[in-house]
């Protein structure tokens, strides 16, 4: 009997061991791909939020000639525009089932203006009524054409006396708002975004770094020599590498020109969310600044802060920043907390060599790599879609559903910080403060913990008010009573009538 038990036990152990081995190896292969930073800033690997559902090269798009240094992709509805900059053309595709794109047209010239041929078009934007805006970089202009490519307007170099007259105007990225005002970023112009009204007139720069008053700098300027003054930068220059207009008309702008020291000191931002006035309204409630990787040390010849070249914003306000340096995608939520990081430098599917542009179709991401000349399509995995579902449910006020989704996320990844905070926030809204506190404490979320604790304390005091008053009364009354008793005793003892010497 004993021997038989042993045999069964061995068999069970062996099966378990075999079952465990392939899982571990499968995990090891993907281990370095997706991660988050925990409260301590340590890298915690997480399941992949996206998988590569397709990689599209020029053949998959049905083209005869390969792309040449494509710089940007743009998505409007079901249409995908690729700026094939090196071939001086813009390609418009329409999405079919399962990302089978068919060529709609090839835009290489416009009607009614000269020169009519495009030269190095760097970016494109399409208005709701079909008007197309083209950053025609080689011809130093931004074009507005109607849907049949008839010329409507030309936006030229801004007339501004702070601009160097020698500077060649090279608009590289454009966005348009609902009123068809154009916001452009141009190479060599570091005063922010160039804003044109819808009649084509330049109306100013927006989104420059505000000049902060610094007494130290003021003192140094007082005593500095002329040469020293020249060395000191007057302001932190702002040259946005890319812009994105979200659903609500806010401009997300990323920059890869910010110095590492400025990023570190908080003087410059890698990502900004600009409102109509050009002030930065990006929420930064995360534990770490919105600037990508936390560790900038040299690894494999790559050093320094992440340099963002593009940004795209999903409908649920999660935005993805594309890092050119380490070829990673950083997802942040509307609170500025890091959701996850994935991607990397390499030749495999899901890795990039020189990513330049990211766009989204629904929740799928399209990334353009201008060295591979390929567009990679990313689709949510179960983990990724659960994370989004949990966030969306929370934002819509369906707290219990959000909690369920976060708990499923937690089952997939027990290290995932946002899941704990998400469950905690959902519990907080359901007025289950004690449980919420436990979740917040696990992930060191002191602000939410504080909120939950405040409510919990209020509740606790309400429930135990009788006991509290009783304890307070005892604490005050007993010493008071004792004092009174002693006083009376003393008064009696020293009262005149009892003093023998007086009675005599």
């Amino acid at each position, binding site marked *: 009997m004993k021997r038989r038990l042993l045999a069964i036990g061995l068999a069970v152990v062996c099966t378990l061991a075999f079952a465990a081995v392939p899982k571990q190896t499968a995990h090891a292969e993907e281990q370095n791909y997706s991660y988050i930073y925990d409260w301590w800033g340590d890298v915690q690997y997480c399941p992949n939020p996206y998988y590569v559902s397709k990689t599209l090269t020029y053949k998959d798009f049905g083209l005869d000639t390969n792309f040449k240094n494509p710089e940007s992709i743009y998505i409007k509805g079901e249409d995908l525009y690729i700026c094939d900059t090196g071939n001086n053309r813009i390609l418009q595709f329409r999405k079919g089932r399962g990302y089978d794109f068919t060529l709609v047209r090839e835009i290489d010239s416009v009607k009614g203006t000269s020169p009519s041929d495009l030269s190095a078009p760097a970016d494109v934007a399409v208005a709701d009524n079909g008007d197309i805006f083209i950053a025609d970089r080689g011809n130093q202009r931004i074009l507005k054409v109607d849907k049949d490519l008839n010329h409507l307007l030309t936006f030229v170099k801004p007339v501004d006396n702070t601009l160097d007259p020698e500077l060649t105007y090279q608009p590289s990225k454009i966005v348009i708002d609902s009123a068809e005002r154009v916001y452009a970023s141009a190479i060599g112009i570091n005063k922010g975004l160039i804003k044109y009204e819808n009649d084509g007139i330049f109306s100013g720069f927006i989104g420059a770094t505000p000049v902060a008053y610094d007494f130290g700098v003021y003192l140094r300027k007082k005593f500095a020599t002329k040469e020293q003054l020249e060395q000191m930068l007057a302001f932190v220059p702002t040259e946005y590498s890319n812009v994105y207009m979200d659903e609500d008309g806010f401009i997300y702008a990323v920059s890869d020109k910010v110095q590492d020291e400025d990023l570190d000191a908080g003087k410059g931002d890698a990502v900004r969310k600009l409102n109509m006035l050009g002030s930065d309204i990006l929420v930064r409630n995360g534990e770490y600044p919105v600037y990508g990787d936390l560790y900038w040390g040299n690894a494999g010849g790559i050093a320094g802060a992440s340099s963002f070249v593009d940004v795209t914003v999903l409908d649920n306000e999660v935005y993805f920043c594309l890092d050119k340096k380490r070829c990673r995608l950083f997802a942040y939520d509307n609170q500025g907390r890091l959701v996850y990081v994935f991607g990397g430098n390499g030749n495999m599917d899901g890795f990039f060599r020189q990513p330049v542009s990211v766009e989204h179709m629904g929740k799928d991401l399209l990334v353009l790599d201008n060295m591979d000349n390929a567009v990679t399509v990313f689709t949510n995995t179960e983990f990724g879609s659960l994370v989004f579902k949990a966030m969306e449910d929370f934002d819509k006020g369906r707290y219990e559903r959000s909690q369920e989704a976060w708990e499923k996320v937690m089952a997939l990844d027990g290290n995932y910080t946002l899941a704990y905070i998400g469950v905690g926030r959902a519990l907080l809204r359901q007025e289950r403060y004690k449980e919420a506190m436990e979740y917040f404490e696990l992930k*060191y979320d002191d602000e939410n913990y504080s909120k939950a604790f405040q409510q919990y*304390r209020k509740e606790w005091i309400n429930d135990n008010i009788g006991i509290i008053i009783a304890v307070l009364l005892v604490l005050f009354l007993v010493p008071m009573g004792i004092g009174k008793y002693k006083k009376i005793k003393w008064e009696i003892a020293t009262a005149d009538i009892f003093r023998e010497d007086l009675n005599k």
Partner: protein
Amino acid sequence: MFEALRKKETYSRFWKSFKFGFYCMTHPLDGFWDLTHEKRGTYAAANAILILTIFVRIIRLKYTSFMFIQVYWEELNIFLYIAGVLFPLALWVIGNWACTTLFDGKGRLGQVYMGTCYALLPYPVIQIPLMLISNVVTLEEGQFYGVLVVISLVYCGLLIIAAMGQIHEFSAGKNLLFIVVSLVAVLIMIFILMIFFSMIAQGVAYFISLGREVLFRM
């Protein structure tokens, strides 16, 4: 020795000298003078205060609300953490005694130790209530936390300065001078210890390799 533990006076004397620590906290000059000159302090009480300080320093990591102290438990070495108090204390006591004894300092080594330990009392006295209160306040209400932590440390520092002046019977100026001199002595000792340990390590490595060589040849 164990006979003394059975006597009641031992405990009453210990308790009396321990309570005297609170008098030193509130009346530093008078208290620290009496501590050694009137023999109001005992080593037992000094050790107790030191142990209490170390104990509070450890448990505050666990029982202070995570809003104020976050501990990376994976990296925490409790022995190093205890040594973080004992090692500077030992260096300070030896350094201070060594310097003052050359310049008319009246305090003996043991008295310097006792005075320093008694001067640590504000740390547990402030930190224990602080630790408890930290668990019943919110983040906004807890703004005072950092200030009180600093106060507890500065209080200890001021008491140490007062204690040294009284124990050595120094004037205020001379006392401050010798505080600085003692700190320099501490730095020098750290330097010498570092050299010493690296030399020892090299010496040991030499004999180990010698031993290996012999074993290989045999």
